[in-house]
């Protein structure tokens, strides 16, 4: 019964700092690498939280995200010069920030929201207890995604199929066969 809270807080603070760097740095390569560092920290956090499946997936996806972002975009243009700051957007977001934090303090401390470390598990108790005898899969997460909720996973595969198809459609050479005169709006 080890207490994971200190490790978790360390990782979370690291993630917040990494995100600040990623958001504020002028160099896009640094931004992408910082955001990937956040992703790897997230993967470690998943490991602490008892989710090795997710940790593996997050790790490999993170590698791919890093490669795609660097090869796809950074090699083209590396600096993000902000010509002028959009003060209105900043102010609006800060107000939003304050509201959410206040609201969050109200919600996450309330009786209606289960405290950290005490999930309700009203449906998932069945998965945990009956998962192995009913599906014969020792990994309960797999039994959930590929048997109890296989329909969702088909949706997930379809999302990936659709987005790859969309990306290929957007990357084709020319959009139209013969160009007509298009009057701009």
């Amino acid at each position, binding site marked *: 019964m080890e207490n994971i809270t200190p490790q978790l807080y360390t990782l979370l603070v690291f993630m917040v700092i990494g995100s600040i760097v990623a958001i504020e740095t002028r160099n896009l390569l640094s931004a992408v690498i910082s955001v990937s560092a956040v992703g790897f920290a997230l993967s470690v956090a998943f490991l602490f939280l008892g989710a090795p499946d997710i940790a593996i997936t997050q790790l490999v996806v993170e590698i791919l995200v890093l490669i795609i972002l660097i090869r796809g975009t950074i090699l083209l243009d590396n600096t993000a010069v902000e010509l002028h700051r959009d003060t209105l957007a900043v102010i609006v977001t800060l107000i939003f920030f304050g509201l959410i934090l206040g609201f969050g303090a109200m919600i996450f401390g309330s009786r209606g929201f289960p405290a950290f470390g005490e999930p309700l598990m009203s449906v998932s108790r069945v998965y945990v207890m009956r998962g192995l005898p009913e599906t014969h899969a020792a990994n309960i997460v797999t039994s959930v995604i590929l048997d109890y909720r296989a329909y969702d996973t088909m*949706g997930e595969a379809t*999302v990936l199929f659709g987005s790859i*198809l969309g990306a290929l459609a*957007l990357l084709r050479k020319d959009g*139209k*066969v013969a160009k007509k005169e298009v009057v701009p709006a």
Partner: protein
Amino acid sequence: MNLVPLFVAIPLGVAFLIPMIGIWWKKSGEVLSTLSMVALSVMALASIGAPAVVHHMGGWVAPKGIAVVADGLSVLLLVAVNVIGLLCIIFSLKYMKEYTGLPKYYALFMLMVAGMNGVVISGDLFNLFVFLEIASIASYALVAFGVEADELEAGFKYLILGSVASVMILFAVGTVYAVTGSLNMADVARTISLDWSGPEMNPALLLAAALFLMGFSLKAALVPFHAWLPDAHPSAPAPISAMLSGVVIKSLGVYAICRVFFNVFGFAATSPTSVIIANSMIGFSVLSIVVGGLAAVGQWDLKRLLAYSSIGQIGYVTLGLGVGARILATGESTALAALAIFGGLFHLVNHAAFKSLLFLSSGAIQTATGTRDMKLLGGIREKMPITATTTNLAALSIAGVPPFSGFWSKLLIIVAVVRAGHLGVAAVAIAMAFVTLVYYVKLQRNIIFGEVGRNVENAREVSAAMYVPLIVLAFVCVGFGILAVTQPAIGERMLGPARDVLLNGAEYVKLVLG
């Protein structure tokens, strides 16, 4: 054996097949998607009036597995999605000839249809999110399908705002799961009505409700969240604009709002949360009606005018539903709530018909004349009589001229609003109905009548594949208007079951969990 999952399985199968076969057989997209859309439309029309069915995916009964539910509301949306999808596919056969990469277009189109059907029949919150993502991702790619600079930019904007909406919805799903321990809508509804329908407010559920409302309003383009729509709808190819305005914003936005709030959260008379939700729905609707209507007046780009008009008209739909919700939440007369909801749903169907007709017409006009700038158009009545007539009918209908269908649905909504005592809201709704009339008169004068414009001189009527869907939709617009007055029983048969689903939110729990 019930066939509900086929509404998802057929379009998905076709979407997976098309890119594979498309390598060898270039026409596969056209043939397969037309055939499957015909089958889907027939299935959807056949299920009107059938009793509600529940299908437990994988044989795992409801809270454990995913339930798929086709009740009155779902069937109504299924009919709208599949019939308009079929007409848009037929229109695409000719219209999309000028684009490259057609197998990808048809595959993405089928994915979009599959996603919308999946959203509409889903009985599980997370499953709803997944299919919403399928439909959204396909529509992001389709908006930018022409890969011109402004299309890409509109697509990117849509993609960014859509991702924000998705994150909000997922966050809300997580919060609901944390509070209730379940994802099945009926199970969640039961837990909420047992534990949290009293006067004590659960702030976590309020947060979830707010996030759901914001996320789905982004998908439905209600006003504070509408920034993507006026760019995305004009930039897309015409059949996609017709799908987006006609059914996508309704099935991903309005339908999801209805399902989540009426059936899952429920508008219990004692809960303070439900009044807050209903009031914000009315607020967003009024804002949409005003902003969409006023912005449309100033537009000279035909499709952009139609896009702004969509914002305003969606506002009318949610106004009807929101007023109905408020009446349920304050526990006043159920008959009045029924009237408001009926009006909202009727306007939803009407808008699906006439707005897709208008967008398809704009596509036909653009193909024939090469422009959609209203200053360069005019007098198409002489050169393109069929398109001109159908456009005219749709414009009259959407502007709310009696006896066309748009008039009756707006009338029902406004009567319900007045009788519910929201006189200020009713005044705004009536005033903006006249503004609608103004911009459609502008459209008529500048496109259909008037002097023959520069680009119209050499225009010819479009081919049959393009005008047949226009004629069908025009008949629907006129038919609804006439039937609404002469044969109320047919309207009741179409919309009654859907209204009852929203009116008796608790029935849903009994239906799914038995």
